[in-house]
């Protein structure tokens, strides 16, 4: 009996996680919240799914949209009667949580991924997502979203955005 229930829970949790692959970060529409490393936990109990989300930025205006998108997606899962989304700060989201293959997707979208394993005091060298040149300059630390900066490639002469290292 107990084992059955656990298996059912597990499969529901797996389905929910699979569904969350379709929920994008509203500010970076090519990347899912799972790939961003923002989904910390998915737990199902008696038809109620609880999702713990790690915000990338405390004041991110997209948090409410994410919550709504997650709820709308998971309520479609068979056997799920309620969705509870909680934002948690332990562990803290860092840019190292972004999935490796998602970093390539970012590049194809024209956004330079953040450096891996960044430490305080490291200099932030950004290579161009279009031509890979390191001959780039920071134009504005703050882009249209707090998590992004605006740079300019002096090699291929393209402006581009980069995700800030959060560490």
């Amino acid at each position, binding site marked *: 009996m107990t084992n059955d229930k656990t298996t059912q829970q597990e499969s529901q949790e797996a389905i929910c996680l699979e569904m969350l692959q379709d929920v994008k970060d509203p500010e970076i529409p090519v990347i899912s919240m799972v790939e961003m490393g923002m989904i910390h936990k998915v737990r199902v109990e008696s038809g109620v799914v609880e999702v713990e989300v790690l915000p990338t930025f*405390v004041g991110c205006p997209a948090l409410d949209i994410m919550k709504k998108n997650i709820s709308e997606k998971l309520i479609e899962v068979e056997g799920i009667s309620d969705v509870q989304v909680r934002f948690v700060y332990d562990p803290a989201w*860092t840019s190292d949580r972004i999935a490796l293959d998602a970093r390539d997707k970012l590049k194809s979208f024209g956004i330079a991924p953040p450096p891996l394993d960044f430490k305080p005091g490291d200099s932030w060298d950004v290579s161009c997502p279009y031509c890979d040149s390191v001959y780039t300059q920071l134009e504005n630390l703050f882009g249209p979203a*707090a998590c992004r900066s605006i740079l300019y490639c002096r090699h291929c002469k393209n402006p581009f955005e980069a995700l800030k290292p959060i560490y």
Partner: protein
Amino acid sequence: MGDNVRVENVEQAKQNQEYAQALADLLFQLADDDFILAYRGSEWLGLAPHIEEDVAFSSMSQDMMGHAVMHYQMLEDLGLGKADDLAQLREAGAFRNAILVERKNGAGEYNDNPHYDWAYAIVRSYVYGLYKQVRLESLLQSSYAPLALISRKMLTEHRYHLMHWQVWLKQLANSTKEARQKLETGIARVWEDAGELSSLGQNADNIVRFGLIAGEELLRQRWLANTKDIFQKAGLSWPGEPGVPTERGRLGEHTADLGQALATLSEVYRLDPVAKW
């Protein structure tokens, strides 16, 4: 609860009334400082020196607003009222922000012939930011675990604000004579109020005794040492000990400027408190 407390969650905090009171007093200071300065920042929209700065400034104001909301949320969890109401519906006398953050951006009103002072904006944001940095670093060791956690997250964002203002300070310090003069006037004006930042208000003893944050003197020394270093590197002369304003914002005494800010920012909210802001 003795001196070496660690409080894991809000339920534990509420078990000791004195602790909960000290925590609430500190949270109001943290929240109100960021909330009011973020409001002043948002008043620069469309008025900053160029479009890129407009984007950057509103982005930073949004971060700070987000930080304030987190602290108001913690106050809500302590049972002190709804977070939105705490931000929008309190009278000026209930605010615990330092006077520095409430001062107007300059002459005129946002909708009526604004002659805002960009040099003052830079110095105020940077000097406050340097204090906030020291405060957040100290909060990493706070006895209140949720506050330590959120402070760590805030630090990751805040360091970019400091980098931004650093660039401006250097630029103005090494620019034309006129720009340099404006910067020095800005520093002098900020310095009249800056000494109040490190005040922890009337419940300071309990706030420190419960290990919520380091003592006023320690915070002040760290902050001044960092600021002195930065001024020196920018080639600016050190203005000496910062002054304190006549009104004590941490005690709920405020200038007419705060009243004006609150009236404006809560105007919409008071009409329809259910709407999302």
